[in-house]
């Protein structure tokens, strides 16, 4: 279980409060207006944004840990791969930043690449990949790291609908494998419906506890309704 206990973020004029829990293994969409603080919330959980209050995972505090020691993997909107490293090396960074891999670890990387459908492309550079393949490479690293939480900061926002749906299916598969908890920022109600039974709304300086996605989208609170363009 992930607990945000009295979490408070201040950045200049910006304020964000969160008091909520997310069950282990839950798939949660994070929705809300632009500039509302969705990325900031994920940044705080991942260890990039300073805050007050406690963040707990399975009962123990993780907010004093450096980002790499937290029980999570995060994918950003862009630049998840280093441009000068091959796909193989980019994924292998998830095991050892110095890239000194044992044979077992090497075959682990190859298996992960195989699972996301990148077999045979391991020597390519990121610039030689399509947008969908870049997303898959990022997911291969997430798969390999096998951390109990996966944070997705819109890594698939630039993909077309069909490709994005394929990526979300891959996320669901990877999450199911380790019963991982997923927090996924999205602008698209269809994404939320497709992958996430639960949705939490970040708006007006507050992150509300996760609620059933269908119910929430059927009768959204005013801030979300305005954002979605409902009347």
């Amino acid at each position, binding site marked *: 279980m992930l607990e945000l206990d009295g979490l408070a973020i201040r950045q200049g004029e910006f304020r964000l409060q969160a008091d909520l829990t997310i069950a282990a293994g839950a798939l949660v969409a994070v929705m809300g207006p632009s500039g509302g603080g969705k990325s900031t919330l994920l940044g705080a959980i*991942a*260890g*990039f944004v300073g805050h007050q209050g406690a963040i707990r995972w399975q009962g123990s505090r993780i907010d004093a840990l*450096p*980002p*790499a*020691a937290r029980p999570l*993997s*995060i994918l*950003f*909107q*862009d*630049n*998840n791969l*280093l*441009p*000068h*490293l091959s796909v193989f090396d980019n994924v292998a*960074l*998830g095991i050892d*930043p*110095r890239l000194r891999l044992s044979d077992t670890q090497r075959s682990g990387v190859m298996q992960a690449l195989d699972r996301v459908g990148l077999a045979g492309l391991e020597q390519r550079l990121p610039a030689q990949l399509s947008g969908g393949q870049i997303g898959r490479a990022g997911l291969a690293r997430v798969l390999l790291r096998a951390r109990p939480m996966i944070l997705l900061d819109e890594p698939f926002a630039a993909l077309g609908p069909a490709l994005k749906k394929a990526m979300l299916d891959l996320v669901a598969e990877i999450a199911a494998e380790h019963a991982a908890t997923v927090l996924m920022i999205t602008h698209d109600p269809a994404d939320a419906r497709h992958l996430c039974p639960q949705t939490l709304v970040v708006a007006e300086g507050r992150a509300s506890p996760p609620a059933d996605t269908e119910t929430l989208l059927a009768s959204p609170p005013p801030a979300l309704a305005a954002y979605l363009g409902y009347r």
Partner: protein
Amino acid sequence: MPCVVILLALNIGALTAVVARAEGWAAFRAADWAALRFTLVQAVLSALISVALAIPVARALARRRFPGRGALIVLMGAPFILPTLVAVSGILAIFGRQGLANQGLALLGVQGFTIYGLQGVLLAHVFFNLPLATRLILQGWARVPGEHLRLAAALGFDGRAMWRHVEWPMLRQVIPGALAVVFLICLTSFAVALTLGGGPRATTLELAIFQAFRFDFDLGRAALLALVQAALGIGALLLLARLTLPIGAISGLDRPAPAPGGGLPRLTDALAIVLAAAFLLLPLSMVVWRGAPHLPSLPEPVWQAALQSLRVAGLSVMLLALMTAALALAAVYATRAGRAFEALGMSALTASPMVIGTGLFIVAFPLIDPARLALPVTALVNAAMALPFALRAVLPALRRAEADHARLSAALGLGFGAHLRLVLWPRVRPAFGFGLGLGAALSMGDLGVIVLFAQTGGETLPMQLHRLMGAYRTADAAGAALLLLALALAAFVLVERLVGGRKGLHAGT
């Protein structure tokens, strides 16, 4: 386009004159080979040392936040408008025979060292180019995507993994350009070699040209040396043309880069920052400290020279304004030849100032007393030297303004004059002011082509300062150095304010 004609005439005309007047290879003596070798060696070493030292400084500035950081980054731009001789005065005050360093060594009973020779030339070149290299490398750090820094934190990179996967790949792209820029700048070193080098072992080609002129009045040999210098410059430029030479602007530095914890990185970063700041600030403080008492008692000729420098700088800024405006507009509007105009402006002085000076002297000498040309020729050469920097400031701003607003102007039916006045000028004005300010300071502090033309009575302030230093009139030299520093800074600030207008007036849309 008269400017284009002037620039081409300046380059081609001078070169033709030089070729026509040059003596055969037989006249190329052993001393001249030594000058060629020294020119190359000092330029290579200056580039290597400046860039190697700039890496830890840029890294420390990129990943630490401390009070005075912004001021230090601004200071890194200052050597650009600092007159060479002022810097040399400051460096001599620290490292010269009577300098602080040697006095300290004497107190300890240790044998002192001499600054004159290769070591002095390198020291001065590093003083000027370490800040430039630091700014260029800092830009590389600023271009590392924030996600990569977060990714490194999320994956637990240690110092070595950080270096291998993030820092070195970035540096590998930035360093060749930085090396090339410093190398090209040092290739035409004159004033530094004149004051800190000299002698058969530490003479650059530019200095050898001047000596052939001044001491032997051997125009044929001067022309031959100028030819070699021109070939060297053009050769280096062609060789390095494949590299995109970086530009010296600073942007986007305030995205925080997570600083590594731990005592050792913190210590090395602190050391890099403190040493770099001291290396830049101590000589300048010495110029102010030693010059201030002698400022009121400066002799009449120094004030005369200051007046002459103001005239040169004034004329030079006017010429620079014309050239910059004409070439920038031509580069943006001439659809076919635009690139050619830009290239012409960016490499305005393919031949070095001394080469141009020699050529012009050869052309003018039979016709007119060269001393009467000192002022316009110096102003013109200074303007051509500053042109690439002014264009680098103005062109991007002009392109952006045109891209943002050209359709609006067309839709509103604004004529070209109105478009220029209402749309482009307000957007370009700050950059224009900055470019002209650079040109004013550069011209104010330049000690170059003027020494070929001017005779007693027509000296500029840098030239007068050089005489005072050479005559060991220490007190007057200290005062004149401070005066020159003040005038160069004032020229930059004044022109930038006057032409550039108040900052932020036209910010936003």
